[in-house]
């Protein structure tokens, strides 16, 4: 029998043979036994290693589980963030297959459940059916082809929603699309833009649009077109506001705007420039007839009565016109010229239109010159106060003087009715008024203590918040007893901001200043004014005095006024008394004071001394 020995054993047998060929049994057993031991050892090592490996793999598995859980939590967080974001999000791989999309994306494009295997092409064609084709352009089609980050486009859907899309490539190929519903913000932006360019009250374009339009038309004019600019404002609109209140005034402006719209063609532009100022740019009409016809139509339409909250209102309009290119092709110049024409239209009696003429410019220049002179006058002391006495019928003596302003210009004196309105218009009246009060108080302080001084306060001055301070200061500086100062106001003062006006009057009254109503009997002469404020005195307008001996109505009115004043505890002054007869009548009508040439003309302060020394005794005799 042949035994096939294991290689190792064969080698060991060989090693165990001595040189003579005999087998060393002990040596062989030793080698074989060693082999067994080594194999046992190897097995033990393998088991040990396997055991450790198992432990290590367990640890690794556990760590991996934990990592997976962390990842899962991160994923859940991310998923929640993506799912709950208001923007639509879709992510595609490099082959254009959808990787992930959120609920906003699906609902934004009405996609329902999107299959995870959807391709970009499929989704895009589904979205395309919703897109308003007029809003789709080349950039939309190409957005997904251009591999640049931050590509962004905007489309409008057929249902009106505006969607902005942004495309960002991913570093490993593929890309992310983010969609924003920008409908609201675009609408808001549109609204803001509209509001910035339109008048809130009438909805008409505002000055910004008007200026743009003119600039645009001036460009066209330079290329051969024609255009006209019509500036218009409402005649005496302020009175409506003052008497009926702003709400009515506002409704009137709205009604005016509506009528203006009916007067022009769609290609013309109407703008409200502020207050009751409107302007129209008329284009592509034969000029100047086109502008004249339009102005005529506007004046006629606007002059028709308005019915607003039960009030029937009638208001006129004045229009100034400049025509391009005849009156210029520069926007500023055209507007200035139209304004000048408007100024002329108003100056000539309102309710009319005027084309710009070269001469108007000269007039305005003259007015500007006057303005400069007026400013100069205050600085160089060209103003002077004259004083006209008021004669007290009862005491048969001069009770006070009315201070009257004179402008002694080197080229000749300028009457107050020429420069006062201008001073009011250019805001110089407060400074002049202050000077008048100071000067009057100072002068009066040098008079006998029983004689007062009266100062006229213009309605514009009354609007200044400084008036009371200014009067107090003049009294303080001069040392004049406030009871010797009388302030004369016209009823126009009471037409404006009545509450404030009354507060000012009461404050003046509180410090002792007396208040007189000037020119009573003209204007509205509403008796309600007399109820609103207890005037110290009513000054009866000279127009009644002039006719007092010839017209019985005049005498009846004067009697009524004096009786009314007497019953209200007010004194009365008759203005413009020139004859003895007038004085006799007025005395008979119980008028308290007489003022006029019969007593004395207005005199400079230096000429008053004689009046204080009883030279009016003759008058007493006459009375």
């Amino acid at each position: 029998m042949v035994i096939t020995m294991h290689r190792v054993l064969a080698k060991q047998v060989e090693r165990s043979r001595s040189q003579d060929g005999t087998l060393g049994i002990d040596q062989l057993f030793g080698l074989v036994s060693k082999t067994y031991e080594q194999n046992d050892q190897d097995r033990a090592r393998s088991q040990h290693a396997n055991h450790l490996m198992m432990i290590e793999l367990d640890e690794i598995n556990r760590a991996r589980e934990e990592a997976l859980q962390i990842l899962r939590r991160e994923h859940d967080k991310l998923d929640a963030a993506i799912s709950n974001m208001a923007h639509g999000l879709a992510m595609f791989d490099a082959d254009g297959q959808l990787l992930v999309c959120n609920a906003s994306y699906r609902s934004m494009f009405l996609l329902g459940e999107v299959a995870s295997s959807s391709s970009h092409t499929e989704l895009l064609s589904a979205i395309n059916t919703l897109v308003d084709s007029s809003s789709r352009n080349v950039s939309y089609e190409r957005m997904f082809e251009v591999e640049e980050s931050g590509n962004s486009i905007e489309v409008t859907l057929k249902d009106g929603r505006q969607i902005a899309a942004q495309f960002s490539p991913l570093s490993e190929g593929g890309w992310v699309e983010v969609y924003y519903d920008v409908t609201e913000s675009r609408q808001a932006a549109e609204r803001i833009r509209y509001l910035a360019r339109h008048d809130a009250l009438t909805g008409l374009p505002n000055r910004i649009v008007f200026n743009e339009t003119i600039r645009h038309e001036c460009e066209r004019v330079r290329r051969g077109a024609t255009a006209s600019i019509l500036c218009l404002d409402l005649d005496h609109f302020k009175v409506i506001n003052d008497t009926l209140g702003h709400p009515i005034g506002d409704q009137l402006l709205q009604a005016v705007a509506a009528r203006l719209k009916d007067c022009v063609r769609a290609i013309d532009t109407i703008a409200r420039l502020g207050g009751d100022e409107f302007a129209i740019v008329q284009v592509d009409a034969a000029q100047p007839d086109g502008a004249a016809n339009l102005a005529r139509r506007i004046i006629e339409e606007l002059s028709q009565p308005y019915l607003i909250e039960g009030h029937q209102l009638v208001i006129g309009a004045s229009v100034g016109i400049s025509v391009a290119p005849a009156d210029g092709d520069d926007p500023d110049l055209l507007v200035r010229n139209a304004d000048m024409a408007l100024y002329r239209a108003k100056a000539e009696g309102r309710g009319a239109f005027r084309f710009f003429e070269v001469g108007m410019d000269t007039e305005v220049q003259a007015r500007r010159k006057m303005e400069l002179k007026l400013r100069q006058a205050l600085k160089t002391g060209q103003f002077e106060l004259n004083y006209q006495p008021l004669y007290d019928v009862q005491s048969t003596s001069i009770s006070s003087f009315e201070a009257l302003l004179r402008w002694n210009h080197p080229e000749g004196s300028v009457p107050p009715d020429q420069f006062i309105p201008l001073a009011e218009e250019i805001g110089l009246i407060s400074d002049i008024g202050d000077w008048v009060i100071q000067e009057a108080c100072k002068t009066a302080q040098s008079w006998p203590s029983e004689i007062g001084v009266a100062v006229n306060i213009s309605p514009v001055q009354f609007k200044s918040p400084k008036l009371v301070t200014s009067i107090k200061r003049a009294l303080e500086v001069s040392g004049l007893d406030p009871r010797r100062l009388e302030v004369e106001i016209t009823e126009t003062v009471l037409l404006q901001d009545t509450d404030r006006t009354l507060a000012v009057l009461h404050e003046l009254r509180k410090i002792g200043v007396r208040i007189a109503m000037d020119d009573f009997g003209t204007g509205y002469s509403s008796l309600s004014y007399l109820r609103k404020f207890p005037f110290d005195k009513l000054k009866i307008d000279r127009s009644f005095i002039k006719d007092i001996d010839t017209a019985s109505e005049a005498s009846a009115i004067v009697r009524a006024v004096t009786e009314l004043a007497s019953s209200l505890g007010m004194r009365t002054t008759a203005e413009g008394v020139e004859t003895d007869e007038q004085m006799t009548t007025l005395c008979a009508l119980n008028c308290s004071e007489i003022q006029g040439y019969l007593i004395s003309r207005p005199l400079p302060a230096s000429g008053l001394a004689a009046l204080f020394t009883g030279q009016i005794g003759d008058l007493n005799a006459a009375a």
Partner: protein
Amino acid sequence: MKAQQLIWKNYAWTGLRDDLSGAQLVILFASREALEDRRCIDQLRTHFNNAEIVGCSTGGNIAGGDVSDDFAAALAMKFDRAKLQVATEEITNPNESFDVGVRLALALQAPQLRSILVLSDGLCVNGSRLIEGMRSAVGNEIVLTGGLAGDGAAFNKTVVAANGIVASGRVTAVGFYGAEVVIGHGCAGGWDAFGPRRTITASEGNTLYSLDGKPALDLYKRYLGADAAGLPGTALLYPLTIVNPEQPDQSMVRTVLAVDHERGTMTFAGDIPQGWSAQLMRGHFDNLSAGAAEAARSASIQTHSPQSEVAAVLISCIGRRLLMGESIVDEIDAATKELGDAQVIGFYSYGEISPHAATGCCELHNQTMTVTTFAEAW
């Protein structure tokens, strides 16, 4: 070419042939003690008076199809046409390895240089740097083979013999010249990676500090269990395969040379680059033997020559012997079978030098069987 395997046993060489007395080269592998005893060298010198005798201490000598520390093995080679030259350099610090490699290579550099066989001190050399140095001087075309000397499983002292001197801290290299020189080479491990893949988190040159942020030595101690007492030798049971994450298909095997219990570090026979991944390996007897056969087959098919005998030098890792014990004859048997009539000797080393099986680039290997075959052809 003629070649003859010689065996030193009972203080005498057997296998000496008269027709080889003119041999130009004798390669000698013996235990450190036998080399330091010098008798084996002296007897060779007597017989081969013209030959360069080079050799080194080992972790086991291979001859006659067997492995033993008791006998020494020598290979006498007589070339018909080829020329050879020996160069030797001293090394006292592993940091000098690259420079020593460069100096050796430059000393041997000449036209017709075909291949270099390197035998180096096994303990005070960074083998990777040594080979890099040589390669940088002679280029990638020259085949570098050889190994690091061994000291059984003791890792105390290794010696290199050349020019009649037996000493530590030396590297000797033999250059083979001539168009007729035919060199075959093969290198295979047969080890299997196991367990988790780890990251080399701290290392410096060939010193490893930590894997996955934990001390590497602790890991080895855990896996070695009772065998830990035999460190550093027993660490050879678990070589490390390391991979550059940027070239995942080119793995290398590293084996332990020394450990520092205080610092918890391990020194390997080659570089352990930080950031690479590492995995423990273990050997199955059959797979290791199959690896040895593969290495021999690869070398053998490169050196068929009708004009020449073939000589083969097997250099296998001490770790393989440590693991396989008595069964180590299996891998010698498997390799020898592939080499046919070739005259075969070899030794168990602390590091093997051979072109990488995949890249062809000459490198230091660990835990492998490398086979170099020599022949002449024209």
